[in-house]
């Protein structure tokens, strides 16, 4: 009798029991959370109204404004002090070292309050021979916040930019020098553009931090998101409701920015990889097109 051809064995995939356990646990925790939230004495009804109330929107605009301004100050100072730190001139390099040491070594909250109270020790703000005004009218909450946040940020950015600059291969500097470029030209045209790939991701991180750290400026009376929310809840006593409102706005700001960061990073990856991967939007468009043409891959 002939042996029948053996049937192809059935393949049994591995069972992932851990996934079911984890899902059950998560569902339980979420349920507890929902129950707690429903029992809490929170007037959920007021949250949508506050989300778009004029005072909150004013605060939102100020938060964006001061964060962008302070980050720009920080980036400008960071590039300046990073280049100074790497300078062969020992005086210039030491100045940069001292700046970073001081502004990175003291709390930003303390720096903010010092700037704001500068009128206690200086009556006037004077640039000798050019300009003079009373310190109280010069050091507005906005100026104090800009100086406090910007100078502090500059110290961190200096270290980020320095790391970017020293990450660029020394052969690049030599090639630029051999072509007759001066130190300034080779920094602007050759080194910094390549350093950007290393500088941009942590800078995005810094800006997301800045969006949140700007709430400290409420201590120097700047009318940003947190200050304006606090102004409302000290009267209405809907403290948690308003804090939830501004938390939502902070999340919106950081999420929107994260998308922007993705595209900026792509821009500076040019030349580093042979071909850039598609963006999520490009992938979506391609998938839609494929759908229209009846699923055929072109």
């Amino acid at each position: 009798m002939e042996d029948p051809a053996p049937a192809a064995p059935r393949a049994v995939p591995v069972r992932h029991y851990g996934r079911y356990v984890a899902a059950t646990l998560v569902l339980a925790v979420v349920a507890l959370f929902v129950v707690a939230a429903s029992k809490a004495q929170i007037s959920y009804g007021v949250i949508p109204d506050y989300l778009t109330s004029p005072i909150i929107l004013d605060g939102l605009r100020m938060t964006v404004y001061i964060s962008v301004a302070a980050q720009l100050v920080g980036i400008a100072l960071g590039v300046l002090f990073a280049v100074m730190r790497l300078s062969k001139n020992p005086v210039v390099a030491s100045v940069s070292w001292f700046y970073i040491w001081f502004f990175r070594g003291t709390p930003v909250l303390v720096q903010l309050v010092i700037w704001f109270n500068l009128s206690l020790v200086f009556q006037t703000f004077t640039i000798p021979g050019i300009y003079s005004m009373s310190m109280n009218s010069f050091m507005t909450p906005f100026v104090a916040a800009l100086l406090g946040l910007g100078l502090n940020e500059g110290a961190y950015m200096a270290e980020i930019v320095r790391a970017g600059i020293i990450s660029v291969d020394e052969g690049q500097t030599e090639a630029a020098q051999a072509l007759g470029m001066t130190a300034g030209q080779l920094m602007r045209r050759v080194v910094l553009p390549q350093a950007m790939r290393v500088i941009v991701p942590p800078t995005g991180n810094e800006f997301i931090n800045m969006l949140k750290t700007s709430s400290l400026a409420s201590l120097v009376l700047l009318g940003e998101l947190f200050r304006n929310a606090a102004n409302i809840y000290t009267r209405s006593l809907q403290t948690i409701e308003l804090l939830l409102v501004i938390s939502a706005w902070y999340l919106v700001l950081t999420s929107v920015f994260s998308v922007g960061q993705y595209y900026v990073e792509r821009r500076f990856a040019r030349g580093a990889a042979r071909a850039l991967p598609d963006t999520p939007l490009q992938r979506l468009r391609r998938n839609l097109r494929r759908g229209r043409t009846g699923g055929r891959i072109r």
Partner: protein
Amino acid sequence: MTIRSSTARSTARSGGTPMVQAEGVRKRFGRLEVLKGIDLEVAPREVLCLIGPSGSGKSTFLRCINHLEKIDGGRLSVDGELVGYRQRGDKLLELKEKEVARKRAEIGMVFQRFNLFPHMTVLGNVIEAPIRVKGVTKSTAVATGRRLLDRVGLAEKADAYPSQLSGGQQQRVAIARALAMEPKLMLFDEPTSALDPELVGDVLDVMRGLAEDGMTMVVVTHEMGFAREVGDALIFMDLGVVVEAGAPRDVLGNPQHERTQAFLGKVL
């Protein structure tokens, strides 16, 4: 010691200013003396090849010629002018950064690892220095750049990025980039050492063409065939000194010095 090769193709050399002149050039890195008194001369339109084991100081000497390394002793001049210094009376004044840069702009250099600018296209690499350093208009620089890319056989790669090219193609772009500055002297620092063997030929062909057009070249190389066919003069260096110099055919074919014989015995 002066190199006067009998095979030089130029007739205008004799009596003219040497393109490169070194007298007792010394260089040390910390305690290590890498150049212990180098004397040599390169005439205009001459091709000098430097060979020797690694650590012999040949690359360091090449880098001294455009002041990427500062010499510690002796005199080194290019086209009759001191490298990195200006003589006033009995004093040597160190040149300012801008003056050094201006002199470097007249000397082309090609590196072992290409060192193309990865964030610029091939054409961008070639037109960058003419525009920024020489102040050439963009349209002129682009026209010259395309012509040079055509010359090194890469006209169709003008818009590619360096990372999309093979090593041999990148090195030819690097040569075009150096030529775009219309240098009076070209320095090659082991230009084919980082290449796959099959890609070496294209780069050497470009260099051979340059030599035929009368470019003055100093080439640090391990390509003995190239040195023999294209070089007018050849120097064997070891441990920071010139061991043997002469016409390539003589030095390679009939080395006089023991150390030259030992080195050539291993590489040929």
